[in-house]
C-alpha cells in the first residue's frame, strides 16, 4: 500500500515542463537574428524588453551578431552597421517611427538593410502604414512568433500588457486570435486538449477559434500526429475571460506576491527594489513582523563584499530563490511567521559549524555553505521587502480601503461605504484606489444610486481632472459596464442590463465569503479565500466548479483530518488527498453559471463517440497511473492571488495539476492605469451609451 502511495505521489509531481516554451522562443529569436547576415543593430520596442528578458539574455543576442541595441523611439537613429533589425509589436505608432528613421537615412544617403520582426506575427496594418509612408520596399518584414513565456513552473504568460484594454476598451480582438495560436502551440507541444470549457463571451470566441485552428492543424499535419506519447497529459482547457470576474482584480491582493505587486509593482516578474535591499548590509531587523528573525550570526562582511550589486531590478524567480517559492503564496499575515522559521533553521544550520569537530564534519558543512549563503541572502531580501511593505499596509488609506472592500463584499451598509469612498477621495487618495472601490461598489451592489453616482463622478472629475471623463464613460459602457447607476436610465441599451452581475446570489451559491473572525480563521486557511483574507475569488471558484466540485461547497482540506487510506482511488474524501475527479464540464453548477453574464461553453474536441466511451475508463486508469494537467487560461489577465489560489486547489487533489496560462499578470491598478486617457486616448469605442 505504502509503495503504491509513494509512486502515486511521485507521479503527481510530474507536471508539464514549461521551460520548453522558453527554449522554443529563444530558438526562434536566434533563427530570426541569424537570417540576417553579419553584424546588426537591434532596435527594440520597450514593451517587449521585459518579456524578452525572460526568454533570453543580452549575451545571447551579442553572440548572434547584435552589435548595439536601441529603444524604438522617435528621433534620429544612427547605426554603424548595415543591418538594422526592428523588433516590436505591430502598432501604427512604431510603424511611423520606423518610417521616419528610414526616410531620414535615405535623405542622408545612408544605406541600410532593414528587417522588421513583428511579434507575434506579421500585420497588414503595419505594412499599410509603411506603404503609405512609401518605405515598404526598403523593409523585409518577418514574424517573430513570441508566444507563451514561462514565468514560473506552473504559469505561462503572453506578457501582453494591453490585453484587457484592447479587448474591453477598443474592441480589438487581435489578442484572442494570438491566444488561440499560442494555445495551439501548447497543444502541439504537450498534446491535445480533449475538452475545452469556457465562460464569458470572449472566452467563447476564443474557444471557437481554438477548435477551428485545431481542425486546420489536424488536416495540415497529416499522418505525423506527433503527440502520441504526450497525449493525455492535459485533460482539459478552462478558458475564463476577465469580464466573468471583474471583482477579484478590483480587490487588494493579500498574498505576499500579490501585495508586492499592489504596493511596489511587479513587471514581467521583475520588481524594482532599492539597491540597499539587494545588497547587504541591512539595518538590523527590528519591526514586529520580521522582528524575531534573529539576524544570522555569521559575519556578513565577506558576503557583502561578494554580492555588491548596483542594479535595482530584481527577478523574482523561484529557481534562484527557493525561499520565494515558500513565501509567495502565503497570506501576508503569515509571512512574518514563515520568515522567522527560516531564520531559525538557518541559524541552526550555521550553528552546526560550531559543533563540527572532525574534518569530515567540517567538510560536510563547507559543502552546505553555498546553499546556506543563498538562503541567507534570500532571507535578507525578503525580510527587507516585508519590512518595506509593512508600513505601507499600516497607512490609513490602505486599511480604510480594505475595510470598505470587505464591507462591500458583505453588502454591509452600502451607503456608508460610498460615503467612505467619498472621504477617501476628499483626502486625495490616488485615483486608482478610488475607481477600484467605486467599481466594486457598483458590481456588488448592482449599481450605485443614480443621484449619488452623479455626485461622485462630479467630485471625481473636480479632484482628478476633467480629462478623466472618457474613462468614466468607458467604465459605464458595454462591454465592460462596471460602473452603473441604479436604476439604469431609460436610454441604456439592453446589453447593459444583461451584463449586470448577480453578486449577492453568487455570494451564497459559490460560498464566496468566509468569516474572518478568529474562530473562522482556520477555515480561511483551508480555502482559497486565504488570498483575500476571507473572500474567495469567483474566477477560481468557477475553476473549482469544473475541476474540484467538492471544493466549491465545502472545504476539502477539512476532510483531511480523519485521514484514512482506502485502497479505492475513488473513495472520495477518505484518502489523504482526494483523487481528482474526471472533468465533466460544468455539471452540477449549470444554474449558477446561467446567472453570470457571458456565454458558457463546454466542448469535447475528440470525436464525441470516442470521448464518451473511452474517457470514463481511461480517465480512471489514468487517475491511478498518471497525473493530468488542467490548463486554465485567463483571457485578459489574472492576478497573483488567483495563481496562488489555483496552486492551493492543485495541492488539494491527487492526480491533477494546474497550469495557469494568461495574457498577462494584472492588478487593479495596472488595469485602471491601462484605461487612463494619456496612455489610451479616447476609449469608449462602444456604441450607443
Amino acid at each position, binding site marked *: 500500500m505504502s509503495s503504491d502511495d509513494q509512486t502515486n505521489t511521485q507521479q503527481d509531481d510530474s507536471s508539464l515542463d514549461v521551460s520548453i516554451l522558453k527554449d522554443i522562443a529563444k530558438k526562434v529569436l536566434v533563427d530570426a537574428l541569424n537570417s540576417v*547576415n553579419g553584424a546588426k543593430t537591434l532596435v527594440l520596442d520597450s514593451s517587449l524588453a521585459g518579456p524578452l528578458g525572460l526568454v533570453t539574455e543580452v549575451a545571447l543576442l551579442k553572440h548572434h551578431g547584435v552589435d548595439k541595441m536601441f529603444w524604438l523611439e522617435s528621433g534620429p537613429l544612427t547605426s554603424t552597421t548595415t543591418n538594422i533589425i526592428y523588433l516590436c509589436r505591430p502598432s501604427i505608432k512604431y510603424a511611423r517611427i520606423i518610417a521616419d528613421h528610414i526616410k531620414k537615412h535615405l535623405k542622408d544617403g545612408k544605406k541600410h538593410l532593414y528587417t522588421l520582426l513583428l511579434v507575434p506575427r506579421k500585420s*497588414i496594418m503595419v505594412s499599410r502604414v509603411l506603404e503609405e509612408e512609401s518605405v515598404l520596399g526598403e523593409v523585409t518584414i518577418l514574424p517573430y512568433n513570441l508566444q507563451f513565456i514561462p514565468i514560473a513552473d506552473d504559469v505561462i504568460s503572453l506578457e501582453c500588457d494591453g490585453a484587457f484594454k484592447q479587448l474591453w476598451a477598443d474592441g480589438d*480582438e487581435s489578442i484572442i486570435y494570438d491566444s488561440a495560436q499560442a494555445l495551439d502551440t501548447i497543444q502541439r507541444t504537450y498534446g491535445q486538449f480533449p475538452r475545452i470549457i469556457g465562460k464569458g463571451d470572449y472566452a467563447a470566441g476564443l474557444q471557437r477559434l481554438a477548435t477551428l485552428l485545431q481542425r*486546420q492543424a489536424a488536416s495540415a499535419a497529416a499522418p505525423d500526429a506527433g503527440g502520441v506519447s504526450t497525449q493525455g497529459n492535459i485533460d482539459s482547457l478552462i478558458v475564463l475571460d476577465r469580464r466573468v470576474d471583474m471583482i477579484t482584480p478590483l480587490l487588494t491582493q493579500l498574498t505576499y506576491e500579490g501585495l508586492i505587486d499592489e504596493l511596489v509593482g511587479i513587471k514581467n516578474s521583475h520588481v524594482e527594489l532599492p539597491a540597499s535591499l539587494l545588497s547587504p548590509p541591512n539595518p538590523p531587523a527590528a519591526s514586529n513582523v520580521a522582528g524575531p528573525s534573529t539576524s544570522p550570526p555569521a559575519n556578513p562582511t565577506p558576503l557583502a563584499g561578494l554580492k555588491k550589486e548596483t542594479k535595482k531590478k530584481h527577478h523574482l524567480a523561484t529557481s534562484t530563490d527557493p525561499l520565494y517559492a515558500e513565501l509567495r503564496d502565503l497570506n501576508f499575515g503569515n509571512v512574518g511567521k514563515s520568515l522567522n522559521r527560516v531564520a531559525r533553521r538557518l541559524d541552526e544550520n550555521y550553528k552546526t559549524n560550531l559543533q563540527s569537530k572532525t574534518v569530515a564534519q567540517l567538510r560536510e558543512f563547507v559543502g552546505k555553505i553555498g546553499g546556506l549563503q543563498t538562503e541567507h541572502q534570500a532571507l535578507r531580501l525578503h525580510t527587507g521587502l516585508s519590512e518595506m511593505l509593512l508600513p505601507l499596509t499600516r497607512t490609513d488609506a490602505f486599511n480604510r480601503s480594505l475595510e470598505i472592500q470587505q464591507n462591500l463584499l458583505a453588502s454591509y451598509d452600502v451607503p456608508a461605504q460610498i460615503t467612505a469612498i467619498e472621504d477617501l477621495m476628499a483626502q486625495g487618495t490616488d485615483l486608482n484606489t478610488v475607481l477600484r472601490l467605486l467599481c466594486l461598489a457598483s458590481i456588488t451592489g448592482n449599481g450605485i444610486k443614480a443621484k449619488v453616482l452623479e455626485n461622485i463622478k462630479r467630485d471625481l*472629475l473636480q*479632484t482628478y481632472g*476633467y480629462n478623466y471623463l472618457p474613462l468614466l464613460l468607458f467604465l459605464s459602457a458595454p462591454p465592460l459596464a462596471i460602473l452603473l447607476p441604479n436604476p439604469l436610465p431609460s436610454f441604456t441599451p439592453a446589453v447593459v442590463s444583461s451584463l449586470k452581475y448577480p453578486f449577492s446570489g453568487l455570494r451564497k451559491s459559490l460560498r464566496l465569503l468566509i468569516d474572518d473572525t478568529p474562530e473562522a480563521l482556520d477555515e480561511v486557511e483551508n480555502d482559497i479565500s486565504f488570498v483575500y483574507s476571507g473572500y474567495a475569488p469567483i474566477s477560481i471558484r468557477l475553476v473549482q466548479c469544473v475541476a474540484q466540485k467538492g471544493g466549491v461547497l465545502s472545504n476539502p482540506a477539512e476532510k483531511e483530518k480523519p485521514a484514512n487510506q482506502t485502497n479505492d482511488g475513488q473513495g472520495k474524501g477518505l484518502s489523504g488527498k482526494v483523487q481528482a475527479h474526471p472533468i465533466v464540464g460544468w455539471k452540477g453548477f449549470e444554474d449558477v453559471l446561467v446567472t453570470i453574464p457571458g456565454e458558457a461553453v463546454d466542448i469535447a474536441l475528440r470525436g464525441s463517440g470516442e470521448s464518451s466511451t473511452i474517457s470514463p475508463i481511461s480517465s480512471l486508469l489514468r487517475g491511478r497511473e498518471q497525473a493530468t494537467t488542467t490548463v486554465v487560461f485567463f483571457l485578459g489577465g489574472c492576478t497573483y492571488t488567483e495563481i496562488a489560489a489555483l496552486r492551493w486547489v492543485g495541492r488539494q487533489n491527487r492526480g491533477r495539476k494546474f497550469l495557469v496560462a494568461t495574457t498577462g499578470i494584472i492588478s487593479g491598478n495596472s488595469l485602471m492605469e491601462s484605461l487612463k*486617457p494619456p496612455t489610451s486616448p*479616447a476609449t*469608449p469605442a462602444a456604441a450607443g451609451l
Partner: protein
Amino acid sequence: MTDHPTTTWQAMQDGNVFYRRQQLYSVSEKLPKLDDHVIAGCRYSGPLALMRDSSKIIVLGKSNVASKTQIQIFSPAGRPLLTFSWDNGKIIRFGWTHDEQLAILNEDGVYRVYDLQGDYQQFSLGSDAAELGVIDARIHESGMVAMLSNLSLLEVKGWEGGQPLTLASPGISEPPHAWAVIPPDLNISRHVEVLLSAESTILTVDNLETIDQRISRGPFTHVSPSPNGKSLALLTFEGTLWVVSTDFQRSMAEFETRNVVGAEGLVQQVEWCGNDAILVTWDSLAVLVGPFGDTLQYLYSGPTFAVTEPDGVRVISTEVCDLIQKVPASTLSIFRPGSTSPAAILFDAWQSFSLKSPKADESMRSVRPDLSTAVDECIDAAGREFDPAWQRQLLNAAKFGRGFLDFDNPSDFINMGQTLKVLNAVRFYEIGIPLTYAQLFYTSPSHLISRLTTRNLHLLALRISTFLKLKPDVVLKHWASAKILRSRPSASGTGDEAELGGDEEVCKLIVDKFQQLGGADVNYAEIAKRAWEVGRPGLATKLLDHESRASDQVPLLLTMKEDRLALEKAVDSGDTDLVYHVLLHLHKRLQLGDFFRLIEDGGAKLAPASKLLQVYAREQNREMLRDFYYSDDRRVESAVLSLDEATRASDPASVLTSVKAAQKFFSEDKDRTFEAKMMDESHRLLTYQQVLEKETDGKVPFFGLSIIETIRTCLLNGMGKRADKIKGDFKVPDKRFWYVKLHALTAIRDFEGLDAFAKSKRSPIGYEAFVRHLVENGHNKEAIPYVAKCDSPRRADLYVECGEWRLAGKECKDRNDKTKLDELRKKCPNTLIQRELDQIATSMK
C-alpha cells in the same frame, strides 16, 4: 534470369571500391543532337531542357530547326514533355528549380518560371539589371545569382519573385573565367556564396564581403561544387583537375586530365558523381576520377551530357541514359565477389534453399548470430537495385532470413516493398523518372507526388499517395485545377443557362470527388481562384463556399468584389489581421460614404470590424474617424474624440476649442446632460486658469490642472482669495476644500494661517485629520493644539502620536481612564516616561 548485378560494376582503388554504370533507358533517335544545344538537366532524375546553341553552325534545311528560339524539354527516357518558343529577348541562362520548374533568364533581367505544362510566371530583376544588362547567371534549386554587365552580382532567393539583393562587389574588371554558386542551405552561414575564378585565384563573394582565396594555380576553366557543398572541383587551363574543400583549407586530390588516353579536344563538363568522385567528360568519353586519383573510363558514341545527382551522376548520350554511381554499401556487401558478410551468406543460403540444396542449412547456422543485420542489409540492397527480378530475389532472401528470427519488426520489409513498387512504377519509360531509393528519400515522397501532378499524371499520383498513405489533397487540387481548365464552357452559343449548369456540374464533380477520396480538407480557395482566373466567377463562388479557411477565402472574395461577404468572412475568422486586410483594401477602393455604409449596415455582425477601423483610424486617419462618427450620429464618440484631441493639443487655444466641441456634442445628446455640464465646467475652468496665469505673469502654470489642484496651487502661491472664489464658482464641497487647504497650508508651513483657518468655522472634516496630517509631515509640535479639539476618547492616543506621553497620561487622568493609562504604560518607549506615567497612575488612586 537477367544479368547478375555485378556485370555493371567496375573496380577502382585496388578493387576496394566499385562503381557501377546502370543503363536507365535507351534513348537512341529520341533526342536531338546534344552538341548543337545548350542543355540544362534537372537533378533528382528530372527532365532535360534543350535550346539550340546559336554559336554552333548547323546545316540548314534539316527538319526540326526553327528560326525562332525554341526550348524543348525531354524526360530522361527521351520522351518529349514540352516544347515552347521563346520571344522575349536573348536567353542568358536557364536552369531547373527544386520543384522541377524551368527558370529562364534573359539579358534584360526578366525571368520566367515555367512548369511542365508550359504555364509560367514572369518576374524581373529590377531596373538596374534592365539598364545594365545581364551577362551571365547561375541558377540553383532555390534561387539564382545573376551577373550584370558591370560585373556586379544580384541574388534572388526563392522563385516567388523575391526582391533581388546585391551581393558584395567582387572587384574584378573582366568577366571571370568560370564561376559557380553554392546554394544557401549548403553553407554554414546559410547565405549564398559565389565562387569566381579571376586571374589566378578564386574569389568567394557573399552578401557581406569578397574574399580573395589567394590561390595561384588558376585561372580555371571549370568550377564545380559538390552536391553537399563541401568540396570543389577546379580544372585549370593546363588540364589539371584539382579538388579542394570549399574553404580552401584542404587539398583533396589532383589529377592530370591531359594524360587520359583517348581524350580529344576540350573538356566538356566537370560534374560530381555523388560527393566523392568526379566525372570529366570529353566529346565521346567520360572519365570518372575517384578520390585518390584512380580513374574509370566510359566510352560513348557521340556527345554526352552529365547531370550530377546526390548519389551519382546521370550521363545522357545520343544512345543511352546511364546512371553512374558508387555501388551502395549493402549491395556491395552481398554481391561483391568472395564476400563473406552475413548478408552475402544469407543470400547464398536462400539461393541454396531455393535450389533445395542442404547447404542452406549450413549457411543459416553460420549466419545465425548476425541474422538481423543480414536481413536488414538484404532489404536495403533490394532498394538499391534497378532490376525488379533482383529486387524480388533480395526481398525473398530477407523474407527467408526473417523466418529464423524470433522477434522481427516487419515494417522495414513492408515499407521497402511498397517503396519499390512506387519506384518501379515511376521508372517505367512512359513516366520516365528514374528515381533511386536515395533520391526518393532525399526529396521526400510528397515531392514525387507533386512532380507527377505537374506532369498531369493524376491517376498515378493519386494511387501512389493512397498507397503510401499520404493525403490525396495535393493531387486532387491539381486535378481540379486541370479539370476546370479543360472544362471551359464554350464562350458563346450555349447561353447563360447552360453555362450556369456547367458551373454547377463541375463544382459538384469536384466536390464529390474530394469527398469520395477523403480529401475533405483540400484547399478549395486555390481551385476557386483558378476558376476565377479562367473567367468563371460563378464556379469560383460555388467552390469558395466549400472553403473552411477564411484566410484563403477572403482575398479571392475581394478580387471578385464581393466586399460585404469578404468582410463578414474575415470577421467570422477572428483573424484581426485579415479584417484589416479587407478594411484597408475597401477603404482604398470604395467611396468613403459607401465604405461607411457597408460597415454600418453590417450591424452587430460587423461590429468587430467597425471597432478595428476605429482603432486604426484613431492613430492613422483621424479625419476619417471624425467623419465616420459624424455620419453615424455617434455624439458620445465624437465628443470623446474631441477630448482626445484636447489631450494631444499643445496650445491652449486649440484645447479650448476641442473641449468646447466636446461640450457641444454632448449637449446634442439629450441623455448626456451630465457630461455636457462637466465639459462646460471644464471649459470655464480652463478659461479661468488662463486668467490666473496672466495674473501671475505666467510664472505659475495653471492650465490643465484639476479644480482641486488649481485650488492647491492658488493656496501655495498665497492666492487664498482666488481659491475661495474657485470653491464658490465650482461648488467644491466643504470637506474637500478643507482637506486641500489643510494639505496646502501645511506644505508651505503657514501654521498661523492654518490656525486661523481651523478657527474660521467648525471643521467639516473634524480635527483629527489636522493632527494626523501634521504628524505625518513631522510637525508634531504644531499638531498638539488641535488634539484638544478632538473627541475626548481619542485624545490620549493622538497625544501619543504627537509624542506627548505626559499629555496623554494627563488626558487619561482627566477622564479617569485607568485601563487606557495601563495600556500607555505598557507601550511607553523609555523609563523616563514610564516613571512619569507611573506617577500619574499613583496620583489617580
